[in-house]
């Protein structure tokens, strides 16, 4: 059985699904048929259909612990009836906590769709959870029974290799599809831009566009190095990147597992000026509560009156005190430039409890308070290709 959803505007799916709606009665019929097949299969194996065991439920088997992926692995649908965000993050959280601590099987059998943003977060969770594993054998993968495209994503973007302990290479020599890339500092940065230039723009990227890409990627990974992991050694300040062209759109996302933008933005010297400028009401409330902290000491209390989505927005504005004079807060201008200076540009920034979405250059962003905290920071651009 396979059901399909209309893709949310601005989001992108890794699998290019054919949109076909099933009516309700057909769906129920197919589900009943699936249950009947499952019951028959159990009887043939000499088993009994237990009332306490439900169809679709996975049990520990021979000491192998199941980690079951949801139908839709997708972080774009944050609100509403089709909210997939929470189940996706619960799955990723289980991956993070269980993988590498005994024998596990990751079960994608019910998965119908897999979005790129969620995929890179999932990949990073697997990568870090298994980083200390020695050799193969502790993880098995059950592929999707619902979508062959989900399976090809798991294979082509190196998740299968990572899970099963095969060597994963971050070299882009000779590859047709860029797998998830990972590095520390500016490792691989030029290879990634070279790949976009040669394989996606087919060597027709002009120098100004190359500069906009180079600046945005360079500043984003430099922000990871400078801010995301304040108490970690340089070798552990890791980022992950996924890049994919789909039709006329290029989707590029960079993820880190650091402390999150809302935690670090309050440290910037320009931050207080920006809060006064953009949120005078909240700033006034704080001054009333803590008059003795007038001045920079008040910064650390700002998260108590300003939500994470707004703090992300402030970080993307950088220094808006009027002079643009501070040396810091410049990286956000490079991140925004990739949206503002390229046609059809969109930007999504997930960090901690907030999401900030720019659907169109020049418009005010959509700010969303997330139903569950996001582990780290994900910056995703959608760019229209020429």
């Amino acid at each position, binding site marked *: 059985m396979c059901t399909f959803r209309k893709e949310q505007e601005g989001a992108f799916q890794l699998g290019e699904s054919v949109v076909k709606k099933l009516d309700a009665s057909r769906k129920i019929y197919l589900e009943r048929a699936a249950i009947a097949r499952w019951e028959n299969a159990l009887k043939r194996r000499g088993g009994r259909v237990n009332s306490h065991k439900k169809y679709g439920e996975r049990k520990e088997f021979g000491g192998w612990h199941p980690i079951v992926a949801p139908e839709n692995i997708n972080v774009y649908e944050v609100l509403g009836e089709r909210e997939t965000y929470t189940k996706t993050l619960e799955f990723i959280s289980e991956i993070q906590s269980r993988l590498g601590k005994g024998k596990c099987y990751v079960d994608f059998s019910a998965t119908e769709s897999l979005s790129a943003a969620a995929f890179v977060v999932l990949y990073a969770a697997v990568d870090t959870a298994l980083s200390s594993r020695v050799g193969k054998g502790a993880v098995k993968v059950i592929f999707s029974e619902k979508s062959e495209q989900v399976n090809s994503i798991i294979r082509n973007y190196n998740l299968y290799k990572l899970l099963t302990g095969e060597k994963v290479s971050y070299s882009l020599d000779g590859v047709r599809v860029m797998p998830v890339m990972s590095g520390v500092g*500016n490792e691989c940065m*030029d290879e990634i831009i070279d790949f976009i230039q040669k394989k996606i723009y087919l060597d027709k990227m002009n*120098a100004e566009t190359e*500069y906009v890409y180079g600046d945005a990627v*360079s*500043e984003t990974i*430099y922000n990871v*190095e*400078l801010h995301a992991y304040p108490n970690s050694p340089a070798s552990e300040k890791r980022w992950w990147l996924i890049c994919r062209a789909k039709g006329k759109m290029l989707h590029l996302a960079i993820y880190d597992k650091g402390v999150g933008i809302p935690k670090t933005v309050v440290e910037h010297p320009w931050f207080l000026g920006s809060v006064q400028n953009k949120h005078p009401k909240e700033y006034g409330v704080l001054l009333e509560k803590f008059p003795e902290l007038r001045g920079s000491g008040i910064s650390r209390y700002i998260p108590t009156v300003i939500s994470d989505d707004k703090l992300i927005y402030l970080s993307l504005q950088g220094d808006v005190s009027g002079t643009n004079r501070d*040396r810091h807060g410049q990286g956000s201008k490079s991140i925004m430039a990739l949206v503002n200076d390229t046609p059809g540009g969109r930007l999504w920034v997930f960090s901690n409890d907030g999401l900030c979405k720019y659907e169109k250059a020049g418009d005010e962003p959509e700010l969303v308070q997330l139903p569950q905290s996001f582990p780290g920071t994900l910056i995703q651009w959608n760019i229209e290709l020429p």
Partner: protein
Amino acid sequence: MKEDIVTISVVKDFGEKPYGRYMDINTKLSGEEFRKVLLVPSLKNHKYVHVDLDGYNRYGRSFLDEAFGGLIRDEGFSWDDLNARLTYSHTLVKSIENLIADRLQAARISVESAGQE
């Protein structure tokens, strides 16, 4: 100081892939390193300095801000002095030249404001 002009090629004289702002964060090829190792000595020893940025199109904003803006903020050069003696060019990417001009101006305002305060 010699009454001459010296040209610094970032790619040939410094490195092919300059990146980042500070020497203590990324020890190789940062904007601070370029400023301290090449730009400041050149400005002290020669009357005119030209920075040729050709050969790399992916400069990050942090690198450029720290290399050029830092001359005013951290090295004590004045905007007027640099305006008279320092030139820079990138043949293919005029946005890079514009950004350097912007960051020099921002550094000038920053230092002047700090002086007033």
